[in-house]
């Protein structure tokens, strides 16, 4: 048993916090089908369709945050454009679902009809198969991230430059996809999905299924990334972060390491998109909004970067608060977001995972008498 736990922790030490978060996700994975489909469903003790959907979306966001943390927390590059890969996954799975809706029929969806097309263009071919769509998602996200990463890393674009360039990429992509003549529905995006993998998108079975799958994928990805980052690759990443020149002079082609990690992160983000879009039933340029991409970084910053599970915690917390606030007090949400970011960045420094700085400051403010009593 201990061996198993050590293996999950990816090394020699038992990391309680990591196991705690992992356990939480496992609980969600088990709880969703039980509470969503079982006899307790739709009761105050169980979950109704809306809540299941919410949990599923948050799981997808958590995966996205973790993908982001891999690059920021471990390789040291702040990406403010991860929405691009998220959107790749989202749009491509959308294409698959559209093809399913139109299987066996002639005619095309409105957004293609609007452009004067009577048939699906050539690049839609093959998307009626889930496997093809899945592979396409991985390939396209890897390709796009490879091009961006290679160009950026090769010219030693770092830090702030990299961050803003990634913003520029996602912003420009949003502009392009918002045009109605790009063939993806312009501002409104693509919708009219009906089924996925045999289940109707609106049914409770599907909602529970996809939410559970999201949680499961998150769990597997967490374990996988954990093992990856506690292994030799993790050391390499730390080396790159600490002193890349040194590593290069030692003979390491850091370009490939960085690009490889970047592409892996992109593929994970695309998978998160694949899990997300069927749950909101539309793939629109909202996914490419520059603000959304910055929010991803905010989730990781608030949770604590460099831990993987910190990003998950951050994503879960922020999105639950966001969902709750936008339902009851929408005006307040931007201010809460601003306040949290400033609080975490200025006071906490390392995110919620590491509340140390908060306590050291609080201690400094404690009256003298109390402090002396402590010793």
């Amino acid at each position, binding site marked *: 048993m201990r061996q198993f736990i050590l293996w999950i922790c990816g090394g020699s030490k038992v990391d309680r916090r990591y196991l705690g978060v992992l356990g939480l996700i496992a609980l969600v994975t088990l709880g969703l089908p039980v509470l969503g489909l079982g006899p307790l469903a739709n009761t105050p003790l169980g979950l109704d369709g809306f809540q299941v959907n919410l949990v599923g979306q948050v799981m997808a966001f958590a995966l996205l945050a973790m993908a982001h943390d891999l690059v920021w927390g471990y390789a040291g590059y702040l990406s403010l454009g991860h929405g691009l890969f998220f959107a790749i996954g989202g749009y491509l799975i959308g294409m698959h679902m559209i093809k399913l809706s139109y299987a066996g029929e002639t005619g095309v969806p409105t957004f293609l009809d609007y452009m004067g097309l009577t048939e699906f263009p050539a690049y839609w071919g093959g998307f009626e198969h889930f496997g093809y769509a899945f592979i396409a998602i991985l390939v396209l996200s890897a390709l796009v991230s490879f091009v961006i990463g290679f160009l950026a890393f090769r010219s030693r674009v770092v830090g702030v430059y990299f961050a803003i360039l990634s913003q520029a990429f996602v912003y420009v992509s949003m502009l392009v996809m918002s045009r109605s003549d790009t063939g993806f529905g312009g501002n409104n995006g693509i919708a009219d999905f009906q089924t996925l993998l045999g289940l109707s998108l609106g049914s409770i079975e599907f909602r529970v299924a996809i939410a559970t799958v999201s949680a499961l994928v998150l769990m597997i990805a967490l374990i996988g990334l954990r093992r990856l980052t506690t*292994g*030799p*690759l993790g*050391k*390499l990443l*730390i*080396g790159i*972060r*600490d*002193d890349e*020149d*040194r*590593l*290069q*002079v*030692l*003979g*390491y*082609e*850091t370009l*490939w*390491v960085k690009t490889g990690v970047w592409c892996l992160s992109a593929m994970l983000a695309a998978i998160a998109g694949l899990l997300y879009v069927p749950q909101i039933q539309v793939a629109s340029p909202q996914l490419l909004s520059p603000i959304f991409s910055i929010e991803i970084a905010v989730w990781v910053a608030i949770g604590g970067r460099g831990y993987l599970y910190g990003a998950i915690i951050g994503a879960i917390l922020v999105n639950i608060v966001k969902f709750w606030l936008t339902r009851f007090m929408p005006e307040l949400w931007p201010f809460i977001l601003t306040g949290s970011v400033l609080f975490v960045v200025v006071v906490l420094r390392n995110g919620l995972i590491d509340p140390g700085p908060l306590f050291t400051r609080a201690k400094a403010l404690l009256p003298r008498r109390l402090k002396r009593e402590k010793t």
Partner: protein
Amino acid sequence: MSQPTAIYVDALTVNFSGFKALNNLTFLAEYGGIHGVIGPNGAGKTTLMDVITGITRPTSGTVLLDRKQDILRMSLPERAQAGIGRKFQRPSVFEHLTVRENIALGVRLYPNSLFRELTFGEVEEKNDRVESVMKTISLDRLGDVLAGTLAHGQKQWLEIGMVLARDPKLLMLDEPVAGMSDAERDATADLLERLRSPVRCILLVEHDMKFVGRVSDHVSVLHEGRLLCAGSMDRVTSDPEVIRVYLGR
């Protein structure tokens, strides 16, 4: 029986927006010894090392390894694979890794394939090599200490160890004893003696004349980007030009 010249630098010029850090420098160093490189500040010593490792691009000139490999065409990691190792001027260790992990990064069982290194590289052979290097640099009892917590001198040794792990044929040390106490200097001199090998050329850039005189076989004096004088320590220190440049007389 003579080895080819380890490193041969020909007419090397490095121009930093009008300031010539290296000015048509010609320089060579042989295998089997420790070759000191000295000179006043701004003479170009560190720039020379930067060019050889690949951090700085020269404006013109050639650098040949073993008199046949044009290393200026190679990327930084390729040069390391060709056998060039360098300890930087300020101690550059990976602060968040342990001593053992630092040195392990220096060992490459599969120098040509990073992928294989990552998947198959965690083996006993590597650990053995790490242990032997740690012994050489006398840090074998500090194996699991975070490098960031080491003392300045220990960091210098650790860095030497990292570079040594790959068994380089050209080992360049940039001010290895800067900021060290006398005892540490002695220990470093001993270390360098241990590192001497007929198939290795050690380039030593230092300001501490005593130290240089103690360990070097040959010394080259650089001044304003040129080679001023070369030879044994005694010969060089009695050269009138050198005296003028160093002492201003």
